[in-house]
C-alpha cells in the first residue's frame, strides 16, 4: 500500500491543512524549515536515526544522524550570527555535494537568513550575475571553488563574508574566514529564528528567454507542499533509503534533496561524484536504496550502457522510481520496466512552483510518456495562448496553467516584481510549457513556449549565452538555441557571425566552446557551433531565434513576415 492510496479520493478531499497538521506546522509559533528538518525529528525521538549517508568519489563514506544534523546546523547558524549575518540576508552556498552543503542550508534557515544555493560548476560570470542580483552578503564555499570568488569579489561590494568550510586560516586570504563544521565546538542549543509562514527562505535562480537569470523567492511555508509531495509522490516511508541524484544548486536538490526527505525523517544517501553507470548501480546495491529520484538524462545515459551492467548488481532493493527535469520519454519508462522490473514515474514542476505539481502516482496507471495528473490541492489546466481561457477539448495543445495559492509557490522574483506579475494571466500562473490533456485527464508535454533551452533537465537562457559569446574576441553576433539531443533532450547550439579578420575553424570553435564553459557553465557551453555570414533579424534588428530553432527542428517556418515585425 502506498502513502497516497487512492489518488482520485485524495484529489477530491484534499486540503493543505492535512499536511500542516501532520507536520504540526506552527506549533509553539514555529514555522522555520530548519527546525522541521532537524530539531523536530529529534524531538520526536529519532535523534539517533541516520539522516545522511554521504559517499565521495573514492568510496569513502560519512554518516550523520538527525542529532548530528541538528547540532551541526546549529554550528553554522551560530557561526553566521556571530559573524554579523542577520535575518533576511542572502547567504550563498557554493560547493560540491559535500555534507556541509546540506547541513549549512539548514543552518542558514535556522538563523533567519535566506539560503541561495548555486551550482558549483558555474563559471565566474554566471556566479557574478547571480550574486550581484541578489546583493548576497555571504558565501559558503570550499578551497576548490574559492578562486572563482576571488576573481569577482572586487565587483561585489555587498559580499562581506567569504567563508571556506574545508580550509584552515593559513591557506586563506586575510578577508576570508574558515570554519570546520565537525571540529568547531558543538552547539547543543540554538534559538531558531522565529520565521513566519511568509518569511523568505530560499532563493533559486532560473533562466528566462530575455534578461539575466532571475531569483525565484520561496518562503518557509513551502515545506507544507514539499513534505506531503515527498510523502505521496516519492512515496517515502520511515524505513526507506532515499536517493535524490539532483544537485542542491538546483531546486530539485533542495526541495527533494533536503527539505522533503528530512521533514519526513527519512534516511537519505548522497553520491558526490560524476556520472558512471557502474558506480551508480554499485551505490544503489551497497546502500540498499529503495526510493530513487533522478532525471531523464541520467536514465537515458543508463540506457545507453544497456542492461548487462544492471544484471551484474542486485538491485532488488529498489521499490519506487521517480523522474524529473524534462519529459520522460515512453522508451525510458519501458526500458526501466525491463531493467529494474518497475517503471519510472514522471513528475513535473519547476523552480517557481517549488514542489511537484503534475505527476504520476504509485497506485495510478502509468501511461508511458505522460506527465500524469495534478497533485491534490493543485488546480491545473491548459489555457489558450491568446486569451488564457481554459481549453476543454481533450488533445488540444495549450499552455500549462496553475491556479495560484499552493504553499510552495514562489512569492516573487528577487527585485523584479514586474516580471513576476507578468507570469499571471486571467487568474492563472502560466508555467511557460505547452501540453495537452487527454480524455482521462493525463497531461502530455509538448515543449517550451519560449526560447529557454532545457538541457539535461536544467533551463539555460539564450540571452545569457549570447551576451557571454559577445565577449569572445572573434564573435560579432550570435544566437543560441536548443537543438534536439537523444540524451539531454536539448543541447545548446550557437550560430555565430565572426568579426572581420576571423575565419571559421575547428580551433576557433573549440576556443569559443571552452570560453563559454568557463565563463558560464558546462550546461551553457554550445555543443555545436555553426558559423554564418549573418543572422536573420526582424526589421527592428532583433535576431530571429525562432526561425533558427524551427529550421533546426525541421518545423514549419510559416509566414515570417510577423517575425520580421517583432
Amino acid at each position, binding site marked *: 500500500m502506498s502513502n497516497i492510496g487512492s489518488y482520485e479520493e485524495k484529489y477530491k478531499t484534499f486540503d493543505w491543512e492535512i499536511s500542516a497538521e501532520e507536520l504540526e506546522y506552527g506549533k509553539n509559533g514555529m514555522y522555520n524549515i530548519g527546525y522541521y528538518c532537524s530539531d523536530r525529528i529529534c524531538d520526536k525521538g529519532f535523534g539517533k536515526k541516520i539522516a545522511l549517508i554521504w559517499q565521495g568519489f573514492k568510496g569513502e563514506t560519512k554518516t550523520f544522524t538527525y542529532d548530528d544534523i541538528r547540532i551541526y546546523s546549529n554550528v553554522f547558524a551560530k557561526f553566521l550570527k556571530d559573524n554579523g549575518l542577520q535575518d533576511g540576508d542572502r547567504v550563498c552556498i557554493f560547493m560540491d555535494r559535500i555534507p556541509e552543503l546540506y547541513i549549512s542550508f539548514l543552518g542558514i534557515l535556522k538563523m533567519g537568513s535566506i539560503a541561495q544555493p548555486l551550482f558549483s560548476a558555474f563559471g565566474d560570470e554566471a556566479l557574478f550575475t547571480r550574486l550581484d542580483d541578489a546583493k548576497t552578503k555571504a558565501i559558503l564555499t570550499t578551497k576548490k571553488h574559492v578562486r572563482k570568488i576571488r576573481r569577482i569579489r572586487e565587483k561585489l561590494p555587498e559580499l562581506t563574508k567569504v567563508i571556506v568550510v574545508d580550509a584552515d586560516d593559513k591557506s586563506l586570504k586575510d578577508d576570508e574566514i574558515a570554519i570546520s563544521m565537525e571540529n568547531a565546538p558543538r552547539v547543543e542549543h540554538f534559538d531558531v529564528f522565529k520565521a513566519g509562514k511568509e518569511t523568505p527562505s530560499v532563493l533559486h535562480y532560473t533562466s528566462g528567454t530575455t534578461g539575466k537569470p532571475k531569483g525565484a523567492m520561496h518562503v518557509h511555508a513551502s515545506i507544507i507542499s514539499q513534505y506531503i509531495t515527498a510523502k505521496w509522490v516519492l512515496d517515502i516511508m520511515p524505513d526507506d533509503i532515499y536517493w535524490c541524484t539532483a544537485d542542491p544548486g538546483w531546486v530539485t536538490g533542495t526541495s527533494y534533496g533536503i527539505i522533503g526527505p528530512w521533514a519526513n525523517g527519512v534516511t537519505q544517501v548522497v553520491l558526490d561524484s*560524476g*556520472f*558512471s553507470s557502474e558506480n551508480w548501480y554499485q551505490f544503489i546495491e551497497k546502500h540498499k536504496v529503495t526510493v530513487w529520484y533522478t532525471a531523464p538524462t541520467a536514465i537515458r545515459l543508463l540506457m545507453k550502457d544497456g542492461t548487462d551492467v544492471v544484471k551484474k548488481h542486485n538491485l532488488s532493493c529498489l521499490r519506487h522510481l521517480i523522474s524529473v527535469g524534462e519529459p520522460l520519454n515512453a522508451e525510458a519508462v519501458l526500458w526501466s520496466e525491463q531493467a529494474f522490473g518497475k517503471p519510472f514515474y514522471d513528475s513535473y514542476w519547476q523552480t517557481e512552483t517549488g514542489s511537484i505539481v503534475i505527476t504520476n502516482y504509485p497506485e495510478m496507471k502509468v501511461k508511458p510518456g505522460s506527465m500524469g495528473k495534478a497533485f491534490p490541492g493543485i488546480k491545473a489546466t491548459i489555457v489558450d495562448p491568446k486569451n488564457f481561457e481554459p481549453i476543454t477539448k481533450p488533445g488540444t495543445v495549450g499552455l500549462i496553467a496553475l491556479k495560484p495559492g499552493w504553499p510552495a509557490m514562489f512569492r516573487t522574483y528577487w527585485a523584479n516584481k514586474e516580471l513576476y506579475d507578468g507570469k499571471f494571466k486571467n487568474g492563472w500562473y502560466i508555467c511557460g510549457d505547452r501540453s495537452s490533456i487527454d480524455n482521462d485527464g493525463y497531461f502530455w508535454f509538448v515543449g517550451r513556449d519560449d526560447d529557454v533551452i532545457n538541457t539535461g533537465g536544467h533551463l539555460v537562457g539564450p540571452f545569457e549565452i549570447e551576451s557571454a559569446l559577445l565577449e569572445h574576441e572573434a564573435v560579432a553576433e550570435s544566437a543560441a538555441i536548443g537543438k534536439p539531443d537523444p540524451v539531454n533532450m536539448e543541447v545548446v547550439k550557437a550560430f555565430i557571425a565572426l568579426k572581420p579578420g576571423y575565419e571559421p575553424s575547428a580551433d576557433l570553435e*573549440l576556443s569559443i566552446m571552452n570560453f563559454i564553459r568557463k565563463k558560464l557553465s558546462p550546461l551553457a557551453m554550445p555543443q555545436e557551433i555553426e558559423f554564418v555570414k549573418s543572422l536573420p533579424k526582424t526589421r527592428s534588428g532583433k535576431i530571429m531565434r525562432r526561425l533558427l530553432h524551427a529550421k533546426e527542428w525541421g518545423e514549419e517556418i510559416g509566414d515570417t513576415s510577423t517575425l520580421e515585425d517583432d
Partner: protein
Amino acid sequence: MCEDLKKLIIEYVKKEYLEEEDEQEVDENTPLISSGIVDSFSMVSLKMFLEKKFEIKIPDEKATTEAFDSVNNMINLLKEFNVS
C-alpha cells in the same frame, strides 16, 4: 609517441578543466568523468579536442563516458583510429 600523447592530453585536461593552482594531480589513470573533473557536458569539448588534434571523427556510439574516463582510456580509443 604514446608518452607524447599522454603528456599532450594530460596537459590539455589540466589547462582546460582544472583551476590554476589546483592541487589535484592528474595522471593517465586518474578518473576524469566519474570523479567529476570533467562532467558529461564538457566531454564534448574534450572529444572535439581529440578530433581536431588528430583529424579524426569519433562516432557518438564510441563517445561513451567510459571511453573518456581517463587518459589511458582515451589513448585506447585513439588506437582504434590508428593514433598512437
